[in-house]
């Protein structure tokens, strides 16, 4: 019913004429001269980057599955697959227009104000255009990334249907609106400090949003049975496949080379080389710091924390990747490696919240760190963004405001969203279903059917 109204509303909006006419065939966007060639190269770059970001879904699925127990594997994979699938549809129907309406980055996206956008619904009307489609695909992959971050924090005890409702609302509303404020020409991007709040590839827009919605979800759904002793001491619940965790991290790292350099939306912007270098260095620095910290603290090099440290570095470099020099990328990644371990400890031992894969610490905390890092390390060589090291404090103020806003927005709306789901349809499976495992109780399919399972 609600969805029907939304679709009808979107169709009406799609009929509102815009200033730029759409070019659905691409014939007038491609001009056959040198400019046309540049356009074609840029299209190729953005589309290939979008495909790389899509592959990050496989990385998230692998990391998550490796970090949880065998009996919840099918459930995690089903959530992984459904969040981008549902997310794609709702980002088409609602999310994209809310986020990029008024940005004018492509035809059909003219209408919007400082708070929300309202054109480009359904990629119809003037938004039925090759440039708009290219931007949509790239951005839809980002929306799906933000959505899937939450799966890890709520693994092993959340109702499948409740998770799907969450997915719809996050990709249709929570993610696009903060995204509009930063990327769609909204009020954060026009703050009167520095160059306004900037977030090159989405430490805040994608990762902090996902991470703090995850915090709200993990808090409201409660810990897995047996995660905390009666005195509150956390209990280790080992995952079921370390190889998957490491392979998944490699896949995510690889995808990040689309996520960050692709965010130039142009291959003719040769800064892409510096961005790729910064991305690589921050991911490496996070891993190195996590490795040696665990080694000096416990005498053993902890592979799960090495992977988490690396992802933390990648999350943190996502906002500043275009604005900082390589030496700063190393520092940003290294600090992320420390932050992620401190945060994992804090979430488990102080907040007593059960986050099986560390999504809150990797994406939430380091998403904020990435936003702040722009205000510190931006050297002014790109986009005229100057941080503290370039002698300007205004940018840091803008970044701090953006970081505070994303925390309040994502955590606040996350709490509201999951509270509504909890009282409307229930957020958590029964204790019996949890003990048997969600593979059997929610999907009726074991993740590794053995010889016994095929006996009829």
């Amino acid at each position, binding site marked *: 019913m609600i969805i029907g109204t939304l679709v009808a509303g979107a169709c009406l909006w799609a009929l509102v004429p815009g200033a730029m006419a759409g070019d659905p065939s691409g014939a007038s966007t491609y001009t056959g001269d040198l400019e046309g060639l540049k356009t074609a190269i840029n299209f190729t770059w953005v589309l290939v980057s979008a495909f790389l970001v899509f592959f990050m879904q496989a990385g998230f699925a692998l990391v998550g599955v490796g970090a949880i127990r065998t009996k919840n594997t099918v459930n995690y994979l089903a959530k992984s697959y459904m969040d981008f699938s549902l997310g794609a549809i709702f980002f088409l129907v609602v999310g994209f227009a809310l986020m990029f309406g008024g940005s004018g980055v492509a035809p059909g996206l003219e209408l919007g104000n400082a708070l929300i956008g309202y054109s480009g619904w359904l990629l119809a009307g003037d938004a039925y255009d090759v440039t708009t489609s290219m931007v949509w695909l790239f951005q839809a992959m980002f929306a799906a990334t933000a959505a899937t971050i939450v799966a890890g924090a709520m693994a092993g005890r959340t109702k499948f249907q409740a998770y799907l409702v969450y997915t719809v609302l996050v990709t249709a509303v929570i993610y696009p609106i903060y995204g509009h404020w930063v990327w769609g020409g909204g009020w954060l991007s026009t703050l009167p400090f520095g160059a306004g709040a900037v977030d090159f590839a989405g430490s805040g827009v994608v990762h902090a949003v996902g991470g703090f919605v995850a915090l709200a979800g993990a808090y409201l759904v409660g810990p897995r049975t047996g995660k905390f002793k009666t005195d509150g001491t956390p209990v280790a619940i080992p995952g079921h496949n370390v190889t998957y965790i490491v392979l998944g991290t490699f896949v995510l790292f690889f995808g990040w080379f689309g996520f960050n350099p692709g965010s130039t939306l142009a291959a003719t912007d040769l800064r892409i080389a510096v961005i790729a270098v910064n991305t690589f260095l921050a991911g490496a620095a996070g891993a190195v710091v996590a490795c040696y910290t665990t080694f000096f603290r416990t005498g053993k090099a902890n592979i799960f924390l090495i992977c988490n440290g690396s992802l933390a570095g990648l999350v943190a470099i996502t906002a500043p990747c275009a604005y900082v020099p390589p030496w700063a990328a190393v520092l940003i990644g290294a600090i992320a490696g420390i932050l992620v371990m401190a945060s994992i400890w804090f979430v488990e031992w102080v907040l007593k919240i059960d986050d099986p894969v560390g999504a809150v610490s990797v994406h939430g905390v380091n998403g904020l760190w990435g936003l702040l890092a722009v205000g510190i390390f931006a050297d002014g060589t790109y986009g005229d963004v100057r941080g503290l090291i370039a002698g300007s404090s205004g940018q840091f103020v803008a970044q701090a405001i953006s970081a505070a806003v994303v925390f309040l927005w994502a955590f606040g709306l996350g709490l509201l969203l999951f509270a509504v789901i909890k009282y409307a349809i229930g957020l958590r499976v029964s204790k019996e279903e949890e003990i048997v495992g969600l593979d059997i109780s929610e999907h*009726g*399919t074991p993740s590794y*059917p053995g010889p016994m399972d095929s006996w009829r």
Partner: protein
Amino acid sequence: MKKIEAIIREEKLDEVKSALEKIGITGLNVAEVKGRGQQKGVKLQWRATSYTVDMLPKLKLEVVVKDKEVKTAVKAIRESAYTGNFGDGMIFVMPIEEVIRVRTGEQGEEAL
């Protein structure tokens, strides 16, 4: 000496272990087994068809105790493995003829 073989729910292992530890029994073996008792099987899905599995995963716990410990050990296992639902398991007690500790050569109840 008696051997106690208990079939228990997987998630009850920690409770059973600490119940036995409380009465001074630390040595035991555990094996993952599949089997069935009175309970019916569960129905699973594979692509477009479904199938029933009536061999369900359980743990088999083996512990050898002195004659005078049998009653308390059985009681500890039964109480800690109990949920009141079908599938709580079974406890079997059987005689043991001899026990020899490999390292020291001790025999009988001394070796336990």
